[in-house]
């Protein structure tokens, strides 16, 4: 095969200078100011999660006699009915949201993509079985199914201490993964089937590449763009689902600072007297999810304008 015969896409890839490789980044910053704002807010949330003890010297779980204090210099966001500092809880709450969100998305993207590759390549019975299973799981109403799963998986899940995950978190992650993996599988399977018929796959096959090699070396890299987009849309959704479950009282362990859990339970009786307990955790949650969605939207527009509005 001569150089002239190579497809234009290949040419583009080899001719592209290192500077052009980051062209999309500069374009992103220029064309998507909202995305940049999103990135800034995400950075703040991530910083809160990592550096929580540096930001506040208060213990988010520590009881004190200063109950239901309104926001002041000492307690920026006021205190709860147990005298816990709301600011500390909001800052530490970022940890649960990010941990659960990230873990869910990583597991379900890897799982969904691997299954999609399997279905797309083995086809036949495997494809039918996997697609059917996905269809069944998707047909359950999401929050209700997560609620049922979270309570019935049982308590005997491992505590993944080395990942910093508590038992409650592992349960929530498992429940949300069961919801998200089939959804991601369905998106990815469509793309795998599309790629399978592409010319470059045929070319690879002609050259003698094994099916396995085609799958991992040729198709998988081509799914990367879609994977980034799916990550950016499912991360905020996973954070919302975690907080919804925590709000319903079946999230992470009681007492753990979690934005959703802090809005639920006994605390609700005190919201009218002490609205700051309700306002700040919800605000933190909304702003974080908004930031991720802004970035996701902008990324999608930049990476693949064809997908606009479809995911």
């Amino acid at each position, binding site marked *: 095969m001569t150089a002239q015969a190579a497809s234009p896409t290949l040419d583009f890839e080899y001719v592209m200078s290192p500077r052009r490789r980051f062209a999309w980044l500069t374009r992103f910053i220029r064309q998507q100011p909202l995305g940049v704002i999103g990135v800034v807010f995400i950075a703040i949330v991530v910083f809160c999660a990592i550096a929580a003890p540096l930001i506040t010297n208060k213990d988010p779980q520590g009881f004190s006699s200063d109950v239901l204090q309104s926001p002041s210099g000492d307690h920026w966001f006021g205190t709860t009915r147990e005298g816990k500092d709301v600011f500390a809880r909001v800052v530490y709450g970022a940890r649960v949201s990010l941990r659960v969100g990230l873990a869910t998305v990583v597991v379900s993207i890897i799982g969904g993509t691997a299954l999609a590759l399997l279905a797309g390549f083995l086809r036949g019975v495997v494809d039918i079985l996997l697609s059917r299973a996905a269809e069944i799981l998707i047909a*359950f*109403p999401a929050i209700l199914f997560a*609620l049922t799963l979270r309570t019935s998986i049982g308590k005997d899940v491992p505590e993944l201490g080395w990942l910093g995950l508590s038992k409650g978190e592992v349960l929530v992650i498992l429940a949300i993964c069961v919801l998200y993996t089939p959804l991601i599988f369905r998106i990815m399977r469509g793309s795998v089937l599309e790629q399978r018929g592409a010319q470059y796959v045929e070319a690879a096959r002609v050259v003698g590449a094994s099916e396995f090699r085609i799958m991992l070396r040729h198709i998988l890299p081509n799914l990367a763009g879609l994977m980034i987009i799916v990550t950016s849309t499912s991360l905020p959704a996973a954070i919302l689902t975690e907080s919804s479950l925590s709000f319903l009282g079946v999230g992470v362990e009681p007492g753990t600072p979690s934005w959703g859990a802090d809005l639920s339970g006994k605390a609700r009786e005190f*919201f009218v007297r002490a609205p700051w307990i*309700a306002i700040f955790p919800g605000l933190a949650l*909304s702003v974080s999810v908004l930031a991720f*969605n802004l970035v996701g939207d902008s990324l999608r527009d930049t990476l693949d304008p064809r997908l606009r*509005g479809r995911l």
Partner: protein
Amino acid sequence: MRAYVIRRLIGLPVMLFLMSLLLFLLLFIRPGNAALAVVGGFNESAREKDFEHQLGLDRPWYVQYFDWAGHAITGDLGKSLKPPRKSVAGQIRERIGNTVEIGLLTISISSLVGIAVGIISAVKRNSWLDYLLRVSTIAGISIPNFWTATLLLTLPAIWWSWTPLAPEFVSFTENPIKNLGIMIWPALVLSISSSAYVARIVRSSMLETLYSDHVRTARAKGLQERVVVIQHVFRNSLITLITVIGLQLGTILGGSVIAEQIFAIPGLGLLTYDAVLTLDYILVLGTVMVFALMFLLINIGVDILYTVVDPRIRY
């Protein structure tokens, strides 16, 4: 067309069977729990065994499942595990109306608002108005409904000592006006995110067709801009719109658990929630399967609507 509908309806029981089997296995994998819950947490193994036997929970799971499924076909979804052991089907019948009402209210509000916002956003694309609407719709899908509901209950109470929470629930048949005065609040809360979704889809799918040839032709032959936008552009978005509205209806029905819990509305969502918390597995099985059935029927309805909207689609 008719053959297609029949085929879909035949597929329905298969889906329901597989879904209920999966759910059953999930719920019954640890039978001890249910009996323990009824006994009330006392770890008296004799009493527990007794209860298990009474409830039939000591039988193998497949016997239990097919016993349940056999009755379910006839519309008998069994009895709650909790005393006074009311019939599951009866409890569902009592409450499903409220959930469906919230669902229909929500989907009406979000279709109206979402379509209007989407069209304005698309027609005025890249103006400051479009920008504002786009930011609001992203915010709309980002803000959790339980927070907006909480604020709705909290802030007016502080500012004007007024709360949308009714002192007692009134059903639609008793007093429609009073009932709508109660139901409108959860519906409004739930419609924030669904109207935002609808608006985003309408905007993007309209932008796809706004520059196509047939639209240019329509303009060229001198049609009013309004006619072009509605009949030539918006009509083309109907397919995507129907899909989204159908999906949203499913999400809203599921989301009813949060709205009903916050606004204390005796609907199916709240029933399921209570059942999950009290480990009343038979009740959970019944309610979740009813939700699933509604969801599947909506999907079939959506597919049938496609052919109405777009005559090119034939099954």
